[in-house]
């Protein structure tokens, strides 16, 4: 249905039929460039991440002449998009980006794809060559709408000034409603110069695209009935809860308390339910906990809310939770029955559906099978007793897990936001940093983009100037967008880049150990920069720590500094991330760090072709 709707909206758009509802206020004449700023202000945008160039000069001129929107000058357009993602994910607002045509737009593509995969609401305005030159291979021309079609939720090329106010407002509506995502508005330079009538629509709507918020009441009733009878139930939740807003997290907490069911979450959903609560089983999936994955495998009722049965979660599909009935709540109809056939699919917004679930559960007061539930919890406690996250600590060398554990202990009582790069450190962060609130955890889940964390932390810090913002980084990833340190310094954003430095692309090294006979092809970085000096070169502060005994002191020092910090935490180079479900295996075939089975034997030939 969503796809159909998008197709429809495209058709509608070309005929200019989508319209803002409500009476149109009398317009004011201004240029297209001024309209851009007017729309941003009307949408309540405070910060715009961008980088100038020939095709957006009129917009930069308009920026210069106003005060409502602050422009944050990044050092690379990918950084602008990730910063906007961090901003959006930590606030629940739409993140905004402005880049020039051609290379500006192509540099933004990685970030846009990242935002699409993780359902992050963004509006990205791109400059375009003047309309009469489109298609001519003009200087810095690229087919932006063509290139970004598969990596945006929707995109527009505005060829008439009359369309500009509507399209821009609509972009915000499309980005933030339904399943959120990135929207590109490509504005040719002559349209930025052209004069037109600006009016602020009273209400922002789209004729074709109207995502459904309320779930089907009969299906919700049926779901509650199944929940009332379940013997081994489990909540499996994801980023949809975070996107749905604080209300969804609150309702989820209520529902877990009311039912007493155990709960696990995907990487993207961490923080929607407090990790300190006894019902929490930890993250599930490829590097999830023993108890979370075994519960998924053995449950008799799976209640999936705002998650999408990604392959990192399900493992081998034909062995995925074979004995369970499945309920799936999602705002995107195309997510339901995509990978896993479910028994009850409820299309709707998580907060709305959870609200109804709570109401119906309370009204029907089902007689739950207390004995069965107690036995289920006993079983779960046995799995928990395996302590699947345990690792062998050391006195002489910092274990990466220990580093993150200490970071957690020393920052948990503060107002802290965590971003990550991609790799082992990301998984360890997900395992060992415990989140009690939503919007505190920003990571690249779907696309797995190395280089996400540093610029994302810049965006988060900007939105939360008084908070402690830490990028848990890998030394390889962080070099991909290191240039944004310069942005952090310019805007006095005291982000802390906490590098788990194992000198390896650790996650690649781990897979090479498991799958390719320990032939560490190109995964060792021979020439790393001196991160302390690098920090200093950026006018930031550099700290290096090499001994477990020095770690607490060094972390305290990092927290105290009111400037951006690069913390070079030198850790064991050979540590692997466990537990792990090897590719091609099922949830109950997880391997542990201390397991007798060698990891190499655990992966079948068929599993090796998967990633």
């Amino acid at each position: 249905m969503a796809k159909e709707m998008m197709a429809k909206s495209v058709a509608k758009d070309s005929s200019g039929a989508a319209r803002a509802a409500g009476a149109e206020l009398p317009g004011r004449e201004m240029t297209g460039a001024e309209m851009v700023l007017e729309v941003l202000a009307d949408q309540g945008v405070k910060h715009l991440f961008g980088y100038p160039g020939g095709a957006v000069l009129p917009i930069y001129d308009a920026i210069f002449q106003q005060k409502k929107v602050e422009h944050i000058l990044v050092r690379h357009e990918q950084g602008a998009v990730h910063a906007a993602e961090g901003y959006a994910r930590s606030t629940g607002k739409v993140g905004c980006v402005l880049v020039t045509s051609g290379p500006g737009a192509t540099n933004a593509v990685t970030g846009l794809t990242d935002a699409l995969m993780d359902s992050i609401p963004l509006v990205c305005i791109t400059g375009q060559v003047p309309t009469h030159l489109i298609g001519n291979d003009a200087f810095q021309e690229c087919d932006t709408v063509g290139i970004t079609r598969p990596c945006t939720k929707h995109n527009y090329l505005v060829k008439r000034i009359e369309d500009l106010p509507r399209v821009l407002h609509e972009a915000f509506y499309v980005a933030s409603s339904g399943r959120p995502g990135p929207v590109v508005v490509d504005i040719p330079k002559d349209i930025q110069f052209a004069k037109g009538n600006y009016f602020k629509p009273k209400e922002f709507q789209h004729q074709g695209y109207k995502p459904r918020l309320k779930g089907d009441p009969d299906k919700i009733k049926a779901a509650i009935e199944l929940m009332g009878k379940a013997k081994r139930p489990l909540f499996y939740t994801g980023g949809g809860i975070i996107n749905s807003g604080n209300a969804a997290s609150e309702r989820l907490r209520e529902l877990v308390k009311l039912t007493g069911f155990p709960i696990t979450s995907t990487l993207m959903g961490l923080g929607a339910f407090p990790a300190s609560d006894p019902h929490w089983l930890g993250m599930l999936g490829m590097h999830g906990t023993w108890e979370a994955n075994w519960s998924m495998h053995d449950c008799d009722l799976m209640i999936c809310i705002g998650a999408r049965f990604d392959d990192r979660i399900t493992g081998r599909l034909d062995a995925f939770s074979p004995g369970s009935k499945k309920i799936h709540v999602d705002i995107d109809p195309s997510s339901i029955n995509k990978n896993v056939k479910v028994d009850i699919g409820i299309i709707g917004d998580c907060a709305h559906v959870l609200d109804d679930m709570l109401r119906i559960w309370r009204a029907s007061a089902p007689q739950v099978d207390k004995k069965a539930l107690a036995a289920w919890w006993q079983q779960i406690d046995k799995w928990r007793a395996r302590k699947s996250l345990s690792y062998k600590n050391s006195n002489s060398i910092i274990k990466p897990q220990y580093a993150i554990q200490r970071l957690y202990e020393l920052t948990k009582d503060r107002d802290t936001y965590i971003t990550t790069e991609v790799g082992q450190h990301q998984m360890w962060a997900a395992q060992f940093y415990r989140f009690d609130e939503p919007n505190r955890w920003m990571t690249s889940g779907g696309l797995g983009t190395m280089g996400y964390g540093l610029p994302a932390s810049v965006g988060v810090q900007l939105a939360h100037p008084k908070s402690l913002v830490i990028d848990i980084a890998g030394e390889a990833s962080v070099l991909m967008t290191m240039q944004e340190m310069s942005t952090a310094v310019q805007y006095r954003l005291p982000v802390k880049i906490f590098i788990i430095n194992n000198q390896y692309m650790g996650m690649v090294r781990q897979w090479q150990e498991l799958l390719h006979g320990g032939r560490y092809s190109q995964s060792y970085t021979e020439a790393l920069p001196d991160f302390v000096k690098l920090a200093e070169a950026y006018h930031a502060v550099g700290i290096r720590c090499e001994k477990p005994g020095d770690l607490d002191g060094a972390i305290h020092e990092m927290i105290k500094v009111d400037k951006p910090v690069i913390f070079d935490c030198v850790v064991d180079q050979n540590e692997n991330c466990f537990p792990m479900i090897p590719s091609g295996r099922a949830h109950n075939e997880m391997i542990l760090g201390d397991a007798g089975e060698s990891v190499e034997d655990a992966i079948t030939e068929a599993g090796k072709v998967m990633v």
Partner: protein
Amino acid sequence: MNKNMSSTSHYPAAPVLQGVEVHTLSVIVDNEPGVLARVIGLFSGRGYNIDSLTVSETEHQKHLSRITIVTRGTPMVIEQIKNQLDRLVPIHRVVDMTVAGPHIERELAMVKVRGKGDHRQEALRLADAFRARVIDATTESFVFEITGASDKIESFVALMLPLGLVEVSRTGVVAIARGPEGM
């Protein structure tokens, strides 16, 4: 364009517009996944117009499809369209039927008309005159099948409008050259 532009922009000003022409192109392509997306992407990315586009595999052994595109633009733009199409790797040949010589263009439409009494009689009479066939009928409706050049279909549809036109489904234009030679 805007007067401002030439002074404040580093882009050349828009050219003075030439007359717009309609051309019909026949394109032979490998019938492989994504080929239609490449053709359509070329048109949308470069801002060319598509009036109609039809496609079907025509040589099964060789997996070749024939695409017929009706497009419009200035002579220069039409020239560009042909050259840009020719540049796509899976495209074998592009022929501009409009300039290549005498050719025939046909379109098929199905036209649904709903009505009773006089209107119904009149619809049937006109259909006969246009050599449209009745391919579905109920006591209050007809579906006519009509083939011909696009303007013939246009006039038939226009005539059906006051007689209870419900909807039209059209194939778009297909074209072939007159005479013994293939393309």
